[in-house]
């Protein structure tokens, strides 16, 4: 059969809107992980699913021009952050991976509780996004 000309305008327009909702939701889950279901792993998976949706609606080259990132480096940076937050406890004479928290007064948010476990979660998040996107882009590339 002859190759029909594709016209994906409905999918592409819906993707442009929906991917923002998915990214927002993944950010929410990432921040909510301390006191509610969520965290770095699920947040990273949902972020990469938003990028996969972009990959489905557009092609690999377009997504690479939107996100000019090598995802292997993203995974490496995530591992580095996770190790650094673990090793940072040595500076205070505490055992490896000791985490603390404190209450701070931020300009807009007011009194917030900030924990160093969030930084470790950021490492997990970056590793999950990097690994998932590396796998999918490697499979998706032709030949």
């Amino acid at each position, binding site marked *: 059969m002859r190759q*029909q000309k594709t016209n994906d305008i*409905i999918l592409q327009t819906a993707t442009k809107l929906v991917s923002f909702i998915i990214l*927002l939701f993944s950010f929410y889950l990432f921040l909510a992980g301390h006191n509610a279901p969520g965290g770095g792993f699920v947040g990273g998976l949902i972020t990469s699913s938003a990028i996969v949706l972009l990959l489905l609606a557009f092609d690999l080259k377009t997504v690479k021009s939107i996100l000019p990132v090598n995802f292997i480096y993203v995974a490496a940076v995530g591992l580095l952050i996770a190790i650094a937050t673990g090793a940072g406890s040595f500076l205070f004479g505490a055992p490896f991976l000791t985490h603390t928290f404190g209450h701070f007064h931020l300009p807009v948010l007011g009194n917030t509780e900030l924990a160093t476990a969030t930084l470790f979660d950021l490492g997990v998040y970056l590793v999950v996004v990097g690994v998932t996107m590396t796998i999918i882009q490697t499979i998706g590339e032709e030949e």
Partner: protein
Amino acid sequence: MNGNEISEFITVFLMLIGSIISVISAVGIIRFPDVYTRSHAATKSSTLAVLLTLVGAFLYFFITESLVSVRLILGIVFVFLTSPVAGHLIIRAAYRSNVKLADSTVEDELKDALHQKD
């Protein structure tokens, strides 16, 4: 307590209507003759059923615990946006791979439009 009972009645009513509509949608998927009419039953009425159930759950948590669940609002918007697009894509794929229309079909305008181009 009277206002609380009325609000509970509203949420229960919404959820009941939602589940009845989803049963109707399932019956439609079984009984319609071809892919296109089945997807008509599947996408439209299931979307409405999910939306009604989510609105019921949102109102319930809003009234009983005065909790505005942003996740439920996002879910309502998300399902409302995505499920027609998903139905459109499935049916488009079916039409492009030459799935036959039902025998009772009168007219196929898309076929004329596609062949006019070349």
